[in-house]
């Protein structure tokens, strides 16, 4: 039975993606999209419950493996995918009625969205580091199409940069994977299992350190490009700003997480093989650099989506730093922060999406008085922004608190840098968002009422997690954190 559940999880997005391609843009297509995403989420939830109850398991031979770490990402991915599909229903309809998107583009959007979900789920659940790479590359391809959906010069430019930079980046990851395979084969022999994570973990202590170090560098640079680590991040703001907003939401909320997941898997192996802090130090270095650079980037942004893209970079830096520190607490905090960031950032992008649609512009200077046009969107954006800036009682603060306190304990020198970056980011983002939300305006109403539920659903969860993390979630996080070592 459980076998089927996993297949269902993968099959729903794949089949519905194909179906949406075939049937084209119909009246009920958005609903199909939502139903499919809902089904995926349901399957993910059931799978999660199953894993919690019965422990990790393989699927499709040994090619897929679901343990408490990736099932957590699966659940998160499916959830955010589901809410994004709800959000994109009215959003895309508005876009079509504004004449920005035609029916074929909408068809492309929906099918690519489902395929993107599929690639992400594959990337998360696969046991094979090679297939992980393939799925990551496929995720790039689907999102390239999504980013260029508007076919404007800007979106094409963004998509082109995205493709080239991530393509090149991911090529480095392939080299890293080859080196990993090379190292593993020396230990595991030519059994064909040498890329299987479960086998690799068993023998990680006997992998050749020199090769693994090289491999980790390539993997870090490769997948790190997708995570958005500075100075490899250049594609990220462009792609976020020029794609449709639901795509920005899933890029920030999911793709970055999945890329980071790949880095984490690599780190576990590298740590096992090399020992010491090699991988951790590299990640901490990248994390701090990313955090600091992103914070200073924020001040010069004129485009709201671009600004939040930089905010995503900033948070990815923070998370990378957290995982770089390692240890149960930091890993816990990192996982928590990933969750919080996914939920919050996608909620922000939902709100921003509606706001930009209402005002017809993405320029910060032209968006004013959202709270007057639509109080719900205004409050959504305001609260989301405050949440992402680490204001208690939202959950982002909880994870930032844990990261900061852990850093203070073990890496006191890093604390001023972290705080400087967080302080600057606060000043810049809040300074830009506040006048958008407050003040006077004269903007028009939209033909379709926005889907507000996702925004507040996300924020509510984030709020709850800031005050109370349910024990089973804690156990689950702890187990995952322990796996990361």
């Amino acid at each position, binding site marked *: 039975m459980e076998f089927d559940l996993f297949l269902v999880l993968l099959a729903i997005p794949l089949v519905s993606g194909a179906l949406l391609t075939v049937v084209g843009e119909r009246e009920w297509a958005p609903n199909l999209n939502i139903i499919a995403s809902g089904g995926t989420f349901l399957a993910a939830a059931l799978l999660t419950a199953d894993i919690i109850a019965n422990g990790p398991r393989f699927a499709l031979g040994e090619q897929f493996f679901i343990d408490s770490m990736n099932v957590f990402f699966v659940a998160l991915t499916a959830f955010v995918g589901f809410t994004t599909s709800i959000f994109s229903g009215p959003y895309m309809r508005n876009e079509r009625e504004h004449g920005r998107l035609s029916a074929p583009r909408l068809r492309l959007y929906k099918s690519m969205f489902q395929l993107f979900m599929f690639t992400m789920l594959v990337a998360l659940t696969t046991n094979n580091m090679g297939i992980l790479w393939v799925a990551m590359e496929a995720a790039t391809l689907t999102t390239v199409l999504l980013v260029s959906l508007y076919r404007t010069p800007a979106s094409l430019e963004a998509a082109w940069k995205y493709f080239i930079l991530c393509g090149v980046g991911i090529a480095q990851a392939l080299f890293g994977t080859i080196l990993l395979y090379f190292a593993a084969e020396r230990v595991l022999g030519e059994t064909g299992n040498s890329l299987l994570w479960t086998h690799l973990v068993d023998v990680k202590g006997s992998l050749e350190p020199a090769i693994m170090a090289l491999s980790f560098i390539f993997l870090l640079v490769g997948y790190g490009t997708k995570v958005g680590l500075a100075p490899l991040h250049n594609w990220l703001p462009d792609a976020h700003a020029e794609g449709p907003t639901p795509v920005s939401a899933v890029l920030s909320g999911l793709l970055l997480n999945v890329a980071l997941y790949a880095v984490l898997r690599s780190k576990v192996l590298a740590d096992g093989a090399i020992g010491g802090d090699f991988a951790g130090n590299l990640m901490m270095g990248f994390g701090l650099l990313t955090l600091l650079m992103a914070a200073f980037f924020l001040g010069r942004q004129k485009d709201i989506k671009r600004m939040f893209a930089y905010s995503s970079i900033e948070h990815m830096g923070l998370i990378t730093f957290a995982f770089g520190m390692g240890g149960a607490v930091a890993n816990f905090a990192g996982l928590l922060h990933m969750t919080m960031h996914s939920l919050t950032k996608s909620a922000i992008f939902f709100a921003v999406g509606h706001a930009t649609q209402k005002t017809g512009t993405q320029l910060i200077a032209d968006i004013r008085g959202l709270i007057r046009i639509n109080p719900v969107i205004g409050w959504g954006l305001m609260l989301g922004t405050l949440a992402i800036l680490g204001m*208690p009682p939202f959950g982002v603060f*909880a994870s930032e*608190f844990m990261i900061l306190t852990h850093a203070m304990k073990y890496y006191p020198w890093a604390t001023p840098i972290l705080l400087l970056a967080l302080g600057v980011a606060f000043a810049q983002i809040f*300074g830009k968002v506040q006048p958008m939300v407050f003040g006077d305006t004269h903007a028009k109403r939209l033909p379709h009422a926005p889907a507000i539920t996702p925004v507040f659903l996300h924020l509510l969860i984030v709020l709850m997690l800031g005050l109370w993390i349910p024990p089973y979630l804690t156990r689950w996080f702890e187990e995952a954190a322990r796996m990361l070592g």
Partner: protein
Amino acid sequence: MPILYSIDLLLVAACAWLAVGLAGLVAPRNMHLVAKVLFPVGAAIGLAAGLEALFFLGEAPETAVLVIGLPTLPFHLRLDSLTAVFVVLLGFASFGISIYAAGYFRQGEGASPGLLCLEYHFFLASMLMVLLADDAYAFMVAWEGMALSSFFLVTTDHRHEAIRRAGYLYLLIAHVGAIAILLSFGVMTGGAGDYTFAGMRAQELPPFWASAAFLLALVGFGAKAGLVPVHVWLPEAHPAAPSPVSAMMSGVMLKTAIYGLLRVSFDLVGTPLWWWGVVAMAIGLVTALFGVLYSTVQSDMKRLLAYSSIENIGLLAVGIGLALIFHAYRMETLAALAMTAVLYHCLAHAGFKSLLFLCTGSVLHATKERSLGKLGGLIHHMPWVAWLALLGVVASAGLPPLSGFVSEWLLLQAFLFSPGLPHSWLNMVVPVAAAVVALVAALAGFAMVKFHGIIFLGQMREPNLIHAHDAGPWERAGLVWLAFLTVLLGVLPSTVIGLIDAATQQLLGTGLAGKVAEHGWAMLAPISPDRASYMPLVFLATIAAAVLLGRWLVRRFYHGRLRRSDAWDCGYFFQGPRAQDTAEGFSQPIRRIFEPMFRMERHFPTVRDEQPYYSVKVEDHFWHWLYLPVARLVEWFSGLIVRVQGGRIAVYLLYSFLTLILLLLVARP
């Protein structure tokens, strides 16, 4: 064993406040429900919490651990006497302010009533939680929740650019301060990673780290309290908020920062070093002098009061510094004297400053005018507000027999006994500090006379002021309550000291209550009556008796005849309202004497002006010395960094390439 501990009851109060706030969202547009039901209920909760804390004072500390919080660090709460003193402050002040607010908020002013109700009660609940928190996480959550809710309250009328800017500045500095506080907590754990306050107490920090923790706490809590140079948000944010909120912020919220500073420096960080006290005192003196000078030159009535709050916070910091010095030298009785002065002044300031801010609220409602230059003569139409404001003014000027005088008296007494310090240099410096405190107190009188005289007295400067009306019954009730507290704190110092002494005892191990109680409730003699004593009730009775007796005798022996006529004014014929001093004119001597302290932009009329006018704008030096340079630095650095994102894909690839090569060459396990 009691069924319900006090801490549980206070927790219930916090939850009740939250519930009241959320109830506001049920019918967000229903003004009647919010104003006439929810706010009074909130007030009652405040009173109950205050009373509960009042009865708790002196009992053994109670602790609780909640289920919420981090998995590794659930919310720890603790109720001890220090907390209880501030809960009393919060509860009693909020009772008056909430009652007033019930009559204050009107439809159509900024946010919807329900939202206001939520933000307001969330603010109250978070302040209570700040006081109760017993671990870093709970404290920070409550602390930032307090900042956040007050931020939304400040920006209630966010359509004004200035208010938005004020809100931004406020939240930013609050956040920076919170970061410093968090760091301070981090230092105080001493690397043990135990973020409960109990864990911090258990740590013996080396002097360097202890000092670091103290200084960080001073910066962090100072940012919330308004110590120079992190005060800039205060004169912007307090006037921007609706008056009950200004009252709550000035009267209560600033005290939570004082609470935090006391908690850290006397409870958590361990034995203080003597120079901490000097630092706190120096900053306090600068703050007090700065605050009072700027307060005298303001033309906006709420800004005037906001700067006056800065002054009072400065005095509190001076008191804390003095207590620290004495405590460091183990002169606990004197430390207790200074500490009592601090706690007393917290209570006193909460009363009179809330009262004054609420009075400005009534004036604002009656006249729609905040600028002193357009007010005047309101005592005729608003006698209640004017006379109650006079009580606040006298207390704020630190004059007997009201509350402000008692704390200033105690503080000066503490100064007087400083020559016993085993440190000759300190012996020299401390009395000079007393001179500055005296100067500040006198200048406060100047500012307060300006405040009261220009708003309520004289001729009406604008014709429309004739339509001003007195405060409504709810507002009046709130004002009367706060005025009552001010008088009570003024005339019953021994009783009050007997109550708050539990907190002094807790922090210093010794208190004043024993000595004070020896001389009965009417006399305040903290050391001995030979050395210093003060009997405010006799004081008040004498003055009242003299006034009444004098009046009666004059009428008895002479007559009570009275005629009305035009004013004499040395025979000048032009007696219009323009002949009176303006707000700027009144403070002209101060501007002239203390010219280097201000950054002024003045325009003088010349002979050739078609429409001659005079204007003066006083700005804060610190903007130009500290904030703008920092902002420019960040801006400059941002400009440098964004060059990375130049748009050229080849360059992007190059970054990637160079990163890879660098790592390949440099990174070795």
